[in-house]
């Protein structure tokens, strides 16, 4: 007996209903509550909370951190995935494991590690003190922690793309006379650009939203070392619920923008067939003259 290729209608409706209900309960509702609470006391109060100097400072710091962490990890991710996908070298699997390390351990632990390294009682603390360099409880520490936590995103996106792509096209370019840079800009990069952009988007989302590691190294100095997520927490702990939700809505907006960009990227990727190459034979042969 042949098995039907689709499930019965009832099963399909049930599955879709469960998925939608779950989505509504755990994603849409919280998001709606964020905006509802933020606007509870009217638009004026919302604007006031967002334009409050400490909130603006937190926003600036968050953007600054992302502006440093994302390009740094873009470069690192490109270099690491290139090395891993193109070359066989000893320590390759170690590098692969190390890239995943920030995923594997709790962000709080990464924060504590930075304190142990750069804190006053840490290994490098006395030397940093002597040279009057502040890392922990200052902007450099926040940036370092964020770079560490967002380390794997670009590399993880690129490695499978580059491995699937193989060396053939690059070798073809070399034989045709292209230099190393020309191969990279004209062949390698165009082939991985959507994967790369996707990695950057994820990396950016995490860089702006990171809480755990940053919370440990920041020291929570208002107007100086608070990022948006930390600022939200402080406001909330001080029972300024409306202000907390107003600032949180900024983060939520950033996340929504990220999601939209991501969807556009995925749609573009499909449209240009950036993935696999096999399609039906479209073109007819021209009859021999």
């Amino acid at each position, binding site marked *: 007996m042949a098995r039907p290729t689709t499930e019965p209608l009832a099963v399909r409706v049930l599955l879709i209903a469960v998925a939608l209900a779950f989505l509504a309960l755990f994603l849409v509702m919280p998001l709606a509550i964020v905006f509802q609470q933020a606007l509870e006391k009217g638009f004026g109060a919302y604007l006031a909370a967002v334009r409050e100097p400490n909130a603006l400072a937190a926003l600036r710091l968050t953007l600054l951190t992302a502006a440093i962490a994302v390009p740094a990890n873009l470069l690192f991710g490109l270099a690491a995935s290139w090395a891993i996908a193109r070359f066989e070298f000893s320590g390759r699997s170690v590098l692969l494991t190390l890239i995943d390390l920030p995923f594997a351990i709790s962000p709080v632990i990464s924060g504590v590690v930075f304190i142990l390294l750069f804190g006053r009682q840490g290994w490098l603390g006395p030397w940093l003190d002597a040279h009057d360099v502040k890392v922990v409880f200052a902007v450099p520490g926040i940036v370092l922690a964020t770079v560490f936590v967002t380390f794997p995103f670009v590399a993880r996106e690129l490695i499978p793309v580059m491995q699937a792509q193989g060396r*053939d*096209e690059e*070798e*073809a*370019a*070399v*034989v*045709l*006379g*292209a*230099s190393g840079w*020309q191969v990279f800009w*004209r*062949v390698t990069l*165009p*082939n991985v650009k959507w994967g790369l952009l996707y990695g950057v988007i994820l990396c950016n989302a995490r860089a702006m939203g990171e809480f755990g590691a940053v919370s440990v190294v920041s020291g929570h100095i208002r107007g100086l070392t608070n990022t948006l997520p930390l600022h939200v927490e402080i406001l909330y702990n001080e029972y300024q619920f409306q202000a907390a939700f107003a600032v949180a809505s900024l983060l939520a907006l950033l996340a929504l923008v990220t999601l939209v960009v991501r969807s556009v990227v995925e749609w573009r990727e499909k449209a*240009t*067939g950036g993935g696999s*190459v096999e*399609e039906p*034979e*479209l*073109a007819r*042969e*021209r009859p021999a003259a």
Partner: protein
Amino acid sequence: MSIEVRGVTKTFGTFTAVNEVSLTVPDGELVALLGPSGSGKTSLLRIIAGLERPDRGQVLFEGQDATRRDARERRVGFVFQHYALFRHLSVFENVAFGLRVRPRDTRPSEAVIREKVMSLLRMVQLDWLADRLPSQLSGGQRQRVALARALAVEPRVLLLDEPFGSLDAKVRQELRRWLRRLHDEIRLTSVFVTHDQEEALEVADRVVVMNQGRIEQTGSPDEIFDHPATSFVISFMGNVNVFHGRVQNGKAHLGPLALDYPEHPHAEERAAAGFTRPYDLDVERTADAKDGFWATLRHATPAGAVVRLQLVGDDGSLLQVEIPRDRHEALRPQLGERLYLRPRQVRVFLDPIEAPAGQTPRPR
């Protein structure tokens, strides 16, 4: 431009892909590197292109050492097995690539590039597809784009890695003949890799048979087919019946066969094998001459102008025989019937004294 390979060796880990290979390709010749997978033919081609660096030995172009020269400076055209077209560029831009990456002072103008690319696309009969992406082309079309792209940089030699390997049988036939015609027109020194002996014999001026990283034989297609130099070559160039045995005092005793073998007049006994093509065995009902042996018919399959017979010898060995259809009509052998087989031609090769250890080929 002539190519010379001198004593080239290349190992990957513990596997010797190319072992002390020397080869000369005269100017304007079309040469096939023929061998099973793992025989080192693709490695040798990549070494000639500069995509792989040999551990030992030299590659010379027109007598000049090019071993240390980078692939991008060798001016070779290379056609990859899976085409390796730039998937994000149109057919036109693929062909134009080699011209666009030239340093500014030698880069042709846009008009010259356009002119050149379109004339190449006309040559491979694809000018009407210039704006398509490679993914929109059929396999045969991609192959021709790859060829046009390789020719655009005016290479001094053309290297092709299994150029027809991933095409279906009919397109393959057409492209083969087309490549041969193209070569006759432009007379560019060319080397192509194949594992298909028919392809090598049909297309090439000269065939180089490789096995386990070494060259077994070099010669014209006729020489390779009619005068195979080693037992590997005769086995690789099509179906063959093998009789194992030994030679001594100018006589060979190979399974059911006994024949003269003056090449080995010594008293010392050596293991040897005799090889007979399926069409070099005559089938008879009576043993009038004494130079054959009896075997039992198991299968008969008509195949065009010939009928293929499968028989079992008295020692249990399987034998393949091809006889013309009219001979089969006249004889009408029955399944299970005992028939007398007389070889018209047997090639005898001494077994190698002792195969060196650790030489098992591994596919790359």
